């Protein structure tokens, strides 16, 4: 008898406690920017595609859910001809982001990816590519890299000297 009354008393007290249940989806939880959710492909500060199709993300992926094919534009800038992530296999481990040498592939705090059909979880490049630089606003791989592309000649990358003049004998 006494224990029942005590229980009712505790329940009554609970009415004045702070609520921990979040009213999802009406109320969205806070997720840190480093949260490992839906994967995106970002662009560099100049608006160009950041991905250089180096295949490192695909190699790092433990479930092999990334497939791509490299190609080049007429100026020698490399980019993926197609870039496919099968999210029905993805385990959101973030290895791809760790492996990416250009900050192109990034995991975002979005996890709302449920689908009724598995094929809808296969994302192509059009679905992955966003219009901004994501978490790393400043970096542009092509400004650092020593290869020549459209708009950046030999010797114009960061920390590069002008191309050697082979016909000069001057020291």
């Amino acid at each position, binding site marked *: 008898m006494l224990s029942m009354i005590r229980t009712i008393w505790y329940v009554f007290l609970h009415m004045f406690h702070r609520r921990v249940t979040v009213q999802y989806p009406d109320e969205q939880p806070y997720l840190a920017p480093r949260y490992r959710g839906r994967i995106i492909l970002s662009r560099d500060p100049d608006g160009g595609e950041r991905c250089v199709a*180096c295949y490192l993300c695909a*190699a790092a992926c433990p479930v*092999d859910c990334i497939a791509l094919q490299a190609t080049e534009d007429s100026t020698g800038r490399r980019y993926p001809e197609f870039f*496919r*992530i099968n999210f029905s296999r993805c385990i959101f481990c973030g290895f791809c982001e760790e492996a990416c040498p250009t900050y192109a592939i990034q995991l975002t705090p979005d996890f709302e990816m449920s689908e009724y059909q598995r094929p809808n979880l296969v994302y192509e490049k059009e679905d992955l590519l966003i219009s901004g630089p994501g978490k790393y606003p400043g970096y542009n791989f092509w400004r650092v890299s*020593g290869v020549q592309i459209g708009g950046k000649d030999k010797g114009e990358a960061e920390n590069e000297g002008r191309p050697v003049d*082979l016909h000069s004998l001057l020291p």
Partner: protein
Amino acid sequence: MNMATVYVDNRAYEMDEKQNLLEGCLRLGMDLPYFCWHPAMGSVGACRQCAVKQFRDEKDERGRIVMACMTPAAAGTRISIRDPEAVEFRKAVIEGLMLNHPHDCPVCDEGGECHLQDMTVMTGHDYRRYTFEKRTFRNQYLGPFLNHEMNRCIQCYRCVRFYREYAGGNDLNAFALRNIVFFGRDRDGVLENEFAGNLVEVCPTGVFTDATLKRHYTRKWDMEMAPSVCVHCGLGCNITAAGRYGTLRRLVNRYNGEVNGYFLCDRGRFGYEFVNSERRIRQPLIEGKAVSAEAALARLGELTSGRVIGVGSPRATLESNFALRAMVGADRFFAGISGTEARLLKLMLEVLRGPARTPSLREIEASDAVFILGEDVTNVAPRMALSLRQSVRQQPMEIAERLHIPVWMDHAVREAVQEKKGPLFTASVSATRLDDIAAGTYRGAPDDLARLGFAVAHALNSEAPAPAGLPESARDFVKEAAEALKAAKRPLIVSGASLASAAIIEAAANVAWALAGSMLAFTATESNSMGLAMMEAPALDAAQAAHADTIIILENDLFRRLPEAEQFLERFRHVVVVDYLENATTAKAELVLPAAPFAEADGTLVNSEGRAQRFFQALPPPAPVKESWRWLGSWDKLDDIVEALARAIPPLAAVTRAAPPASFRMSGAKVPRQPHRYSGRTAMLANISVHEPKPPADPDSPLAFSMEGNPDQPPGALQPFFWTPGWNSIQAVNKFQEEIAGPLRGGDPGVRILEAGEGTPRFFEDIPAAFEPRAEEWLVVPLHHIFGSEELSRHAPAVSQLAPPPYIALNPEDAARFGDEAEMLGQRFPLKRLAELPRGVAGVPAGVPPFAGLEFPMWSRILQAP
């Protein structure tokens, strides 16, 4: 081999005292970084990367740093690889090499199979301290095969050492001075040497990369690979074929100590793209319309119910030829070559069953006097020319030996030898690419070349018949060549059928037989010419007389074999063709069955040495495409047909041993075709279906279309790719050899099925009369071109860019009466003036339409173009 005890980090090891410490350490499986040393090119001690510490004796604690590649593995040598000072030294060296290396591994085609990456990781250099400006270079256009990215260079000099000293090229060099050394040509342009493609593998980093791979770039770890054999000439160089997403991506060299060693020719390396050609036949066709495989097979059954003959092919495998032979009956099976070619092949085969042994390319490299009769080796069997180029180094090597300079100490050997060359004599119809190293050259019409050969044979052995009335110009040549061959320890005669002259082959045989112990190498123009010859089927001439309603043509374009192919085909009511590329013959066919080219097929080829070699599928053939032997027979497995063929054709009985059978397992597992890092398995087909398909079964080989399997080293014939932990580049091959630059572990792949016979041969007596030019006619001979003469590589875009357009070549004096063009066979062609060509002889590019399919040599009128 004399073994010496060498102490490495205080443990005793056995090393060959003829080798250097680097070779010794690598042979023992130790990891010691290096750049400038190459197993085929020796040491120069330029990069300072293989530094180790050497101690005088066990009491010596200070020691001194030496380069392992420049120190002989003498008995009692004590070295340390792990010594902290040596480790620090190697790390400092690589830090220096990386000062100017660009930040571009992600977009570099070498990434993932880069020797520089491997060595950097091995030494532990991981952080850049140098913050000043990097030196940059402008790149050059080097032709359709190679891509140039000079910023990545670490100045190891391997490229120019290979290109100039090993391959004999002279348009690539090191330019400028001090820290701005540039490796390239003096101006943009196509690299002239036929072996330039090897720079892809010789360069330890990404300065020279495969330009054909760049167009469909895939990392090494993402490719499905299988051991394969080159199909672009008769030498049968071993290659690794690599594919992804259903297309063939590239070929790299697959080391075979006896055959190609470390190098390939550019036709072999870059001719592969015909597999991806738009002219590929991918559906069965009836009257030009695509039908299902069932409908095609039903029609094949109808057409073969009557009288049928089969035409085989020198570019189809033994298995496919045998399947056709079994289907139509041995007496109704014809070799798909002209009567002339069949007679020449038969003659070569008979000669090779005589006392002269046919050498492997390794033996060719080791021969010390060479006589090339009638062949332009560089353009017919290119890789053999690279071996011949090394043979002239054999005799002068005695100078180095006298001075006690070890063979591997490359720079010192070259200083000692200077420009001295061993004897190599060429007798050819026109200039050849080996003339620059020849001790003597002779030019003549085919019959004159044969007479010269007979004269050399007579000079060596008076029992051999002598030609009467040899011109004065030839006598010195004969004397010198005969003396050089007689003085040599390992003399070699090279000849072949590319001038379509039986007399030349007979003369070469006489020379070889006149000189006991000499070797005789014949070139063959197609991948299975020798194998087809061993099947001993009658040629196409005999097929003309056969009565049949249906003709089945296997992987063969008859328009490249017969001048009157059209009339020949019209004699048959039904024409069935099994092939992989559209050509003039498939256009005439009622039924076309889509065959699998080498990258999608399993089979066995016999090379010109008489070595049977098996190749395996790198890619599963996309249904309904399948191997020709599967279309034509009912064998379930490759092993079944190989066994049947070995039983039915006694000379081929040994082909069962060319590779382990399909039942071969290592610890119960198959050999994976995919590296363990292979990516994209669950995504590459997700756009079609999210349910991953089962990997294709492979009943024909011990290889699996999977990354699962036993990762240990299989026998060489099954080695799908060279990779070991820490060695991602092709340099990993060191870990797969019994000896550095020796045979692969478990023996080099392939089995020799042609051995020299016993007994004294009878010399050939039929000496042709001297060549007499005619007044209004020219003797037309085929001039072979490495790019363009071979049928399949013509369909590779990179190779076709370098193929010559049709032309007529004449001696300038003969050509004086013509303008820039001349008319032959009713067509106009540009006229090429070749001073080396004898008068009265006209040359046309072999295998280039409309000259493909002509009977050579022939007499033809050449007219002033109207």
